[in-house]
């Protein structure tokens, strides 16, 4: 059974689950598990509840996350913490210039015993893949990862292998280190649902961190709070969150506003609209609601859209960031009332 059919099946399940009264109970479960997941992660990542929340939102929305920041602020730690909190298969790939695509996807090797080629899965075959310093690998290797991210499958020598569910890539990259890096092209950045900047911790959080992390890695104390099966159920529950016609209109209005904005050279793609709605659903579920509000859309717009946009020269000269432009747009785009 192909992954394509799989998607369709889950779609049908979603249709059914909406009618079942269990949807409320499933959402309660989502809320419960997600909050314990966030609590566990927050105990390791000091003072960054927003980043943690975004990561969990992306997890529930089946999205991949790009963590972009200067070295040493805990990018990798965040990725590893999430991986540790879920009792699932986790692979960590350190991207280097000499990393080959087959290291990611896997390779067919000749097995003398069975006299046939045998597929050796690569690093991508895991529930959570932590791609460290993704911009250090060559574009060829990057695209091998990114294509499997989009389709949740790997094709090697004509055979298609489905990736396990849930599947999430947490990639980190360093924005200021230019020497020996291959920055991700726009088209590839588009595949990440959200980008997070960690930012420096507050002085107090940093002191706390010194206190607690002085001895050994806090990761070692961390126990998984959930497993892959539960996460899959949660993702199903999140898909059942209701989005009204007016809300979908709002999502489209927001993405279209990025396309017509004079401050932007490149606006958000239709895939961005999809990601935005999915992330909004997850955000609503995390708030314990069975329907999406425009407030959910606004809350996730900046992490979901900012990394896909390209600023015009004028905006760059004015030292505006994509997040600034998006905040402006959100203040202007009208929230549509239901049409008659």
């Amino acid at each position, binding site marked *: 059974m192909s992954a394509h059919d799989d998607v369709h099946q889950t779609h049908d399940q979603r249709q059914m689950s909406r009618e079942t009264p269990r949807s409320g109970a499933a959402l309660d479960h989502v809320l419960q598990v997600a909050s314990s997941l966030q609590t566990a992660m927050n105990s390791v990542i000091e003072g960054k509840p927003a980043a943690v929340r975004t990561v969990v939102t992306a997890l529930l929305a089946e999205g991949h996350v790009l963590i972009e920041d200067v070295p040493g602020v805990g990018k990798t730690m965040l990725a590893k913490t999430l991986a540790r909190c879920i009792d699932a298969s986790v692979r960590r790939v350190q991207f280097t210039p000499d990393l080959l695509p087959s290291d990611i996807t896997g390779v067919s090797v000749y097995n003398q015993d069975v006299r046939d080629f045998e597929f050796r899965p690569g690093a991508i075959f895991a529930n959570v893949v932590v791609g460290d310093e993704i911009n250090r690998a060559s574009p060829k290797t990057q695209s091998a990862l990114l294509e499997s991210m989009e389709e949740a499958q790997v094709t090697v020598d004509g055979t298609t292998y489905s990736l396990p569910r849930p599947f999430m890539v947490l990639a980190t990259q360093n924005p200021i280190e230019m020497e020996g890096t291959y920055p991700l092209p726009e088209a590839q950045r588009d595949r990440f649902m959200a980008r997070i900047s960690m930012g420096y911790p507050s002085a107090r959080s940093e002191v706390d961190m010194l206190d607690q992390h002085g001895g050994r890695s806090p990761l070692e104390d961390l126990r998984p709070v959930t497993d892959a099966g539960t996460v899959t159920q949660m993702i199903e529950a999140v898909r059942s969150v209701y989005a009204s016609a*007016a809300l979908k209109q709002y999502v489209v209005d927001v993405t279209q506003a990025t396309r017509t904005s004079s401050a932007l050279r490149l606006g958000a793609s239709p895939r961005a609209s999809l990601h935005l709605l999915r992330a909004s659903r997850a955000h609503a579920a995390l708030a314990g609601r069975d329907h999406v509000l425009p407030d959910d859309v606004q809350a996730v717009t900046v992490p979901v859209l900012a990394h896909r946009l390209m600023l015009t020269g004028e905006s760059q000269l004015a030292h505006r960031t994509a997040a600034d432009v998006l905040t402006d747009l959100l203040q202007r785009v009208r929230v549509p009332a*239901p049409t008659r």
Partner: protein
Amino acid sequence: MNRTRPLEALLAALATLAVALPLLTLFDSNTWVRPAGLVIVTIALVGVGLRSLALSAWVVILGQAVAGFLAISWLHGRGHLLGGLLPGPDSVHALGILLGEARETVMAFSAPVPTERGIIVAITILVGFTALVVDAVGVTLRSPALAGLALLTAYLVSATNSGDGLSWKYFILPIAFWLALLATQGLGVVRRWSTTVPRGSDGADHDPVLGVAGTARLLGAGTLALAIVLPMVVPHLPTTFLADGLGRADNARGGGSITLNTTVDLRRSLEDQSQTPVISYRTTTTSPDPLRVAILTDYRRGEWSTGFTAGRNVQPDSIAQDGDPSVKRTPVRIDVTENRLQAPQIALPSPLQNVDLGDVPLRTNFVGSFEVDRNVGEYTANYNQLQPTTGDFSTDGPGPRGWDEGIYNEIDGESFERLQELVNNVVPEGSTPLETARLLQAHFRSSQYTYSLQLPTPTDPVSGRTMMADPLSNFLVSRTGYCVQFASAFVMAARIKGIPARLAIGFLPGTFANASYTVRAADAHAWPELWFPDLGWTRFEPTPGVRTGGAPTYSLIPTEVGPTESASPTASSSAPAPTASERPDSDTGSVGPTTTSTSGPFRWITDNLLTLVVIVAALLSLLLLPVAAWVRRRRLRKAARDDAERVEADWASLISRLGDIGIAPPDGSTPRQAGTRLAHDAILSAEPKAAMGRIVSTVEQARYAPPHAQIPDVSTDTRAVWRAALSARQRGDRVRALLIPADGLRQWRDVVDGTLAWPRRAWSRLRRR
């Protein structure tokens, strides 16, 4: 941009010329048009020339002024120029003399004024000045709207002095030129704006400004048409003031003072019926008599005048009485509470017994009329109402003072024959003076005469041509006139029969309201007084109609001897004259006291009907928007097909109403953000804040929750929030929000759009064809 602006200069010159044209109605020839036109052209051309040199605006204006002055000097004072070219002190002096002449002429004549040389100079200077101001403001300084003020001022000079209104043709020309000037400059300004729309971008190769220009022209033409058409449709109303007869302070002096013209001209129509109050008084009688201001004895060429000045001081507390004190009389007292009659005139009843003017001295003259030195605001007078019997009208006794000098028996020569004929027809030979007076009065009050403030153009009954006879003859032929004509004819007829007679002018008793009488300028009246030795000067009332009321009882013919040719005086006094143009409510005199007092409030209402209608209409119009807003909210709520739409309607109306008090959510806000913001801005307390929370969550449910969710009714909560928000505002905001709701404006716009939808569709269909 062209600095010369020749088109604008041309339009400004044309507008000035057009605004000067109505002066044609004020002067008897048009010889001034050519010099005035030349000066206008000179100023326009000099302006164009100087502007092309890119000089400062003030230099241009100075140059134009100098050129205008030179042109006027050359046109009118060529003999006084220095070296035949430049004006010097001599020419200024000459111009000054001419202007002095013009001033004399204008003071001496009413329109149309003869066009003398001085008049031409004055018009040329005035027109030139107007042209200079219009060109300077409208073209050089580029504020054509302001130039309209200068044009309006010049136009008003003609409009206010021409007596009648000006013809609309005089109005439309200057306005059209001025609007054209405005449009030309405005378009020039608009054309200089940069536009991002390239020419012909919408397929058609046309100037985008032209669309604006077309609209502007349409608006201008529409305004012009309205200005012409509206006055035709709206009925002409008499000049009244909003506060007429309403709460007027007792000592209000706002209306200024009034002087009665003591030179009574029989040729003038009495069109102006000013409603300005002159005197207010209380009296002890139920049928007060007219108040006399002056006595006129001398009639010459259509004009009455008095030849006597009042020099002799009298004791106000005991005034000499004419006649026999044994005649039956009733003392009457009047208290004047408000008097605006300008000194030296003073309105007093007759025969006057005494008067209290405070410390103001009272003076009298040879014929017995009174004057004061200063204005008297309040005074009290006592007089006698005589109730003479027929026997009291005997002619045995002394004649009046001045009888021997012949001041009471001069007869107008021009109308003598007609008067003689009238007297012969009406008064049989051998009638006593009383019978004569009664018969004459009955004749004038009969239906053969028409009361009208408009004097007819005298025409010869045979040839139909305009007949320029003396005014008294005109009256006797046309039998149409007002009190002055009736009283004059009566006086002359009485004099023919040898009875001493004179004309008294003053005021009718006025309108009764709120226990006091109010005399207005329109109550001015003239009546004849005849001398009877036992009675003194006795009033008769030959003027027919409701206006003058009934004639004094003694002047009526006893019914058994009533002549058949005239209607019974009693009947004629109660029946309104056929063409009396007065309002019936100015009827005074014969109306009984009870009627007057009971009809007081009703009369007040009819007096002020127009004012009341305006006030009621204004009050009702205040309700236009609130009612429309209410209708709209109700309609939207009723149009809702389910709970969700009803909540949506409630939310929309709440947002709109909060907008009325200046609280609006930001543009891109979600319901939740809007609710928080509104609650903060409206300074809601805990309870309405909670209500706002419920409203917001209900709106979210209605908009975003899965279908078939439970949606409660929020109308109670919206009302609570609205009331709380309103009560936190200042009173001005509250009143504004209640009277001018945005929902009301929207509703009216919808109504107008709906009404215009059909014609618009028809128009677009027509255009497509």
